[in-house]
């Protein structure tokens, strides 16, 4: 039963990824712009160009190219970046941790801020504070993440420079790490000096990504908490002698987070999408930044690889959310 669901899930994931790969493969080859022309110095002859086209297989039909690419992928070979001449898989995997860490940090920030706003708004419902929280949420929501990025750069990078607004870490520290998961590694090795340097770099881009999501979480969770507060089991808990704080956190919250959770899953994939521009804005060396370079250079194999990885990331996130939902919801757990 469970096995069948898992298999079905894997199958749909596979089909999705295949579909995405076809669409991207065709799109980036149909839009104008020639990767070979981009890499050659001005004054290269047509012969040079043709030779390179053959080397990269770009002289064949798109269908042929796709199947060559796919047969490589099946063997774990995602091709070679035209720009850097390095295997795409290596390039992409080396950048993935940076983007993952940034996204997760943003998610945590969003949940902390959103949760705090929702709980405070529920505790003080009907007061001016609740109104102020609603207005704040509305404002946070109506501005997209990259504009928050610009605002944060102006505020905390220029006017009151307390945070770094460029890069992931101070360049002289990169040699301290043995993995690309800098943030996790700094925590596990209890190197809080490194951690502090990382956070002072990552906090601004992460916050920019987090603000719209925090507002969504704050709004939805508060709504759902307020509805839950009217339910009979909450009232019953009051008659047992419990006060407002206990009732909100112990009785209402566990039930109110469930609808919010599904939404966080969807929104988190948007957030990961948002890293592309935010990373560019903050010169953060992640996948998104690499994606933009790849597009500018028409580095077809690299674009292809990055897009597939993003697609995979989205499906994994959705899977994790579904699993978490099943764990938190006792009614599904026993079904």
């Amino acid at each position, binding site marked *: 039963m469970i096995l069948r669901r898992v298999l079905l899930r894997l199958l749909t994931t596979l089909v999705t990824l295949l579909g995405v790969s076809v669409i991207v493969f065709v799109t980036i080859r149909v839009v104008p712009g020639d990767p070979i022309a981009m890499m050659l110095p001005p004054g290269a002859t047509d012969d040079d160009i043709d030779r390179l086209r053959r080397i990269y297989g770009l002289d064949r039909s798109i269908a042929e190219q796709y199947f060559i690419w796919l047969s490589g992928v099946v063997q774990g070979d995602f091709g070679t970046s035209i720009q850097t001449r390095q295997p795409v898989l290596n390039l992409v995997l080396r950048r993935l941790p940076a983007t993952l860490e940034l996204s997760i940090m943003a998610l945590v920030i969003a949940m902390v801020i959103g949760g705090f706003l929702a709980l405070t708004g529920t505790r003080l419902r009907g007061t001016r504070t609740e109104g102020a929280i609603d207005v704040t949420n509305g404002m946070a929501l109506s501005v997209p993440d990259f504009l928050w990025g610009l605002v944060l750069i102006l505020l905390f990078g220029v006017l009151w420079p307390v945070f770094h607004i460029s890069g992931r870490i101070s360049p002289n520290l990169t040699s301290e790490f043995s993995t690309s998961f800098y943030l996790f590694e700094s925590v596990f090795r209890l190197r809080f000096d490194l951690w502090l340097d990382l956070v002072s770099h990552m906090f601004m881009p992460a916050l920019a990504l987090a603000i719209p999501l925090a507002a969504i979480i704050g709004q939805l969770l508060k709504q759902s908490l307020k509805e839950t507060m009217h339910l009979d089991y909450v009232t019953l808990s009051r008659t047992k002698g419990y006060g407002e704080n206990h009732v909100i956190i112990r009785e209402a919250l566990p039930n109110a987070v469930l609808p919010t959770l599904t939404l966080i899953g969807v929104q988190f994939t948007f957030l990961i999408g948002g890293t592309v521009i935010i990373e560019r804005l903050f010169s953060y060396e992640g996948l998104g930044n690499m994606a933009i370079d790849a597009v500018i250079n028409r580095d077809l194999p690299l674009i292809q690889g990055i897009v597939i990885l993003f697609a995979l990331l989205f499906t994994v996130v959705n899977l994790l959310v579904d699993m978490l939902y099943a764990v938190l919801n006792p009614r599904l757990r*026993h079904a």
Partner: protein
Amino acid sequence: MSAFLSIRNLSVALKGGPRLLRAVSLDVAVGEVRGLVGESGAGKSMIGKAVLGILPHSVEVVAGEIWLDGVDLLRLKPAERRRKVGATAALIPQDPLTALNPSRRIGRQITDRLVDILGWTRADAESRALELLGEVHIPDPARVMHSYPHELSGGMRQRVLIASAFAAEPRLIVADEPTTALDVTVQKQILRLIAQMQARHGTALLFVTHDLGVVSKVCSSLSVLYGGLVLEQTGVRDFFRAPQHPYSRALLAATPQYTDPMAGLNPVPESVIAAVTEEVAQADRGWRHG
């Protein structure tokens, strides 16, 4: 004061609006089962909510006293009042399907008050919960302790809620139409169970219902309400033998079991309604908000 619960001239009103309870006074002694009857909207539930401190936000107590175990609840600070109510009183709610938290295990929902409010050890609280689940005839209490509400039927859940209400050995229980949400067949069992538990534990019971048949089975006394006004208070025997108030008489006549079961409901006559409405208006004369 001999009554364990003594409500004196309690008036509850919509904030800035009309009264919903009009100077209600009633007593419930230790071991007494007092029925609160009246048509829908009469204010029966409002009395229970006022006692337990769970009035809706839109209403407020505008006058009166609620003496529970010798203290006037309305003069306590909110936190003290909650503790007092939690330690000495309990609620058996109307709808067992919504009164249990779907994401918490049954056991925790019974023991939480014992541990958090009354300071029992978890072990004591758990053995107490097991004992009570047995008392309300739940098969395999140990398993039910670990279950979630959705794994139990409505009748079972109401048993759990009854066990939970009696677990802390409260001296007063408010039961607000505890059987109306249940199947007819289950209703009788639950009613019998509540009566049994009440007798065994000697709890004072405030029993909200609109069903005089139920009153005749479980209550020892009753108060008849209309429009937030107490019209008549008397012992159950006296009431069924000779109701004093015209509205009470009409109510009794309107209850099928006491006339002809085939006859259906005899509505309370217009003239009686008019008279009792006038009585309510009379009560409001000279009353001013705030």
